[in-house]
């Protein structure tokens, strides 16, 4: 394949111009100045494209927007001409570009992350036929972050040598001039990384996984506070996106952080004073409930393409009223949610929670009375809690057979959830690979149990939607028929999940996994709880 452009930082504009000028004396060609050009890097809130090793750059030229998806090293992947920036992957016209983008960013909104303004001059190196055989760009640029306080900073001044396929010799001559005569050294990072570094942005942050690093000998209350602080930060990070309803993942991640907060409060027992636990448990339960209705509707909206695909073609269009109904109610519920986020109750909750977390943990001994587990090393607490939760999952799961009632699966689902939260909260205490394997195994079982439960809830909910839509005058006979068909499909899918359960559980409870759990978490001296 063709070599990529090589970028050379150069210390000053004067030096850059000089270099361009002497290159133009050496190589016949045409010099062209270009006016300010603005381009924007698009990426999701959690930098999915960047973390996937690429960048999505949009530049507007008159009335058309050109969108380029490149590997970070500059290799082009996809390019498209559009009327405007896409807000979501599905805004692109049907194409391989859209499919590939969709598989990386999914439901996340493409935010304007970074704006680049550049100007400069280009030397088009020409052959005897006036054919361009290489290009040399001289570029000065600045980058603007798009946060709450956007700042603009100058980027390194660059000379960029651009090859053209089939003219390797001409390109090499250009590179030799830059490297041998001008003594320039190629930049070590790609343009986006360079801009991020200049602005001091850290794109690896906010991926949803806990990053807090615990040490086994740390006091349990200290460790729990660290976990809670990180979760509080996740709540704050996602709040603005929730308020603006930028995409459904903000609320999803917000809710996960709230649930993990509650689960750490209740699952890591006797480390905070009981009145503190009681108070915040209630408050975060309220916050969880306040966000529930919007999330439910988000989920149904996300399921719509799948629902449509489930139905025969002649019924598909009759699902449109459901979509409208969902959108209308989602807007309503979202407005209510924003009211809750604007409430004093919410701001006081976060404030008092923050101040509790910031309080230093009590000195030794003073804690013993009402939080007896506070000073135990967290490594011990974690193993103890996880082992117990795991034993409960095993026992509950083993008691289920083909004839057990659905409630037994629901109970197991809840037990699995508790185990999962504990594994995630304490992940950093254990071997990364082993934890990865166990979480993955548990996740498979949870997916099965989750789907089983979810499919049941969906049937009930769709029936109640049908009822409401009928009352709101949104449902035609065909729409009701389509919904009926859908409920039937969901019912048979639920039965399939029930069928699968025994197999999935057996996999999770395999001898290998059991010995893994034992090796990691079983303790020989028991800790009184």
């Amino acid at each position, binding site marked *: 394949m063709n070599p990529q452009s090589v970028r050379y930082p150069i210390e000053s504009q004067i030096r850059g111009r000089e270099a361009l000028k002497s290159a133009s004396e050496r190589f016949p060609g045409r010099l062209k100045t270009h006016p300010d050009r603005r381009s924007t890097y698009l990426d999701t809130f959690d930098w999915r494209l960047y973390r996937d090793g690429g960048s999505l750059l949009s530049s507007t030229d008159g009335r058309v927007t050109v969108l380029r998806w490149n590997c970070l090293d500059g290799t*082009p992947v*996809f*390019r*498209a*001409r559009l009327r405007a920036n896409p807000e979501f992957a599905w805004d692109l016209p049907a194409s391989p570009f859209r499919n590939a983008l969709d598989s990386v960013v999914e439901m996340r909104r493409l935010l304007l992350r970074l704006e680049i303004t550049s100007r400069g001059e280009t030397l088009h190196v020409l052959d005897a*036929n006036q*054919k361009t055989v290489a290009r040399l760009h001289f570029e000065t640029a600045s980058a603007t972050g798009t946060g709450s306080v956007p700042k603009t900073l100058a980027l390194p001044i660059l000379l960029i040598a651009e090859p*053209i*396929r*089939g003219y390797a010799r001409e390109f090499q001559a250009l590179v030799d001039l830059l490297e041998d005569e001008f003594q320039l050294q190629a930049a070590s990072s790609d343009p986006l990384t360079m801009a991020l570094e200049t602005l001091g942005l850290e794109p690896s942050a906010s991926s949803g996984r806990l990053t807090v690093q615990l040490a086994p000998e740390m006091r349990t209350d200290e460790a729990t506070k660290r976990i809670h602080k990180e979760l509080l930060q996740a709540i704050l990070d996602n709040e603005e996106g929730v308020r603006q309803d930028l995409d459904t993942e903000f609320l999803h991640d917000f809710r996960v952080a709230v649930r993990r907060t509650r689960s750490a409060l209740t699952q890591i027992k006797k480390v905070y004073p009981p009145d503190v636990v009681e108070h915040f448990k209630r408050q975060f339960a309220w916050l969880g409930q306040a966000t529930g209705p919007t999330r439910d509707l988000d989920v149904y909206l996300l399921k719509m393409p799948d629902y449509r695909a489930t139905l025969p073609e002649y019924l598909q269009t009759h699902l449109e009223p459901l979509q409208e109904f969902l959108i209308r109610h989602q807007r309503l519920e979202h407005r209510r949610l924003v009211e809750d986020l604007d409430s004093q109750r919410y701001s006081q909750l976060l404030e008092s929670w923050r101040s509790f977390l910031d309080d230093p943990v009590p000195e030794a001994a003073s804690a013993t009375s009402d939080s007896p587990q506070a000073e135990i090393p967290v490594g011990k607490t974690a193993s103890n809690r996880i082992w117990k939760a795991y034993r409960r999952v095993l026992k509950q799961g083993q008691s289920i057979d083909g004839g057990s009632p659905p409630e037994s699966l629901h109970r197991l689902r809840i037990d699995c959830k508790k185990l999962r939260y504990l594994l995630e909260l304490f992940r950093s205490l254990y071997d990364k690979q082993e934890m990865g394997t166990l979480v993955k195994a548990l996740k498979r079982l949870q997916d099965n149990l989750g789907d089983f439960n979810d499919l049941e809830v969906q049937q009930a909910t769709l029936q109640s939607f049908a009822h409401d839509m009928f009352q709101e005058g949104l449902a035609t006979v065909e729409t009701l028929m389509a919904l009926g068909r859908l409920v039937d499909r969901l019912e048979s899918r639920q039965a399939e999940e029930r069928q699968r359960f025994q197999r999935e559980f057996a996999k999770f409870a395999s001898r290998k996994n059991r010995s893994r759990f034992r090796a990691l978490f079983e303790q020989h001296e028991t800790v009184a709880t």
Partner: protein
Amino acid sequence: MRVFATYNIKGGVGKTATAVNLAYLSARDGARTLIWDLDPQGAATFYFRIRAKVKGGGRKLLRGKRPLDVTIRGTDFEGLDLLPADFTYRNMDLDLVQSKKPTRQLARLLLPLALQYDYLFLDCAPSISLVSESVFVAADVLLVPTIPTTLSLRTLDQLDRHLQERRTTRPRLLPFLCMVDRRKSLHKRICASPHEHHPEMLQTVIPYSSLVEQMGLRRAPLPAFAPLAEPSMAYESLWTEIVNRLSL
């Protein structure tokens, strides 16, 4: 990779202008595009200011002794590459006939390019020969520029019949009217209902315009130097119609 060939038994009907302009538009819209100038006269190569020369000549290339890959050259336009013509292509028939299955040889050579490009345009020399038979095997679509005269329409019929007789898979035939002069009443009459002359005839017609001839002076695709001119717009709508017709 989808392969288009601009083809007509007749010469001088606008095959090269079509290949060059459509390839340019396809690349501009973001598709990775390659144009292979199969005509020893090298008109398409000339339009891109590239030297009509293939190292080692056409024979090595056609026998698979030299990969196409290293012969490809980037044009001045993003996403658009060209495989240059070579004067030795005039012996292409002879070079092909010496390979095992002569009519499949061209298609075989294209295989390694399939992942590198979304669209390939083959710009063919006029005539019907072993080369054109090979093109019929390699191409998914034949774009046939047709001048609205009785004789040209007859040639189109001949081509259609010739393709129908082939037992192997045949390319889809997409003819369109070009070099249309609205002042001529015959042109006007034929253009009134294009599909009467062929069921697949495209609706878009390319007008006769001296701007198209200027491509030879400017040595660039027409929409690159006169994007808003009438014939450029005609090529734009031709490309859009093709994309829609094939649901690309």
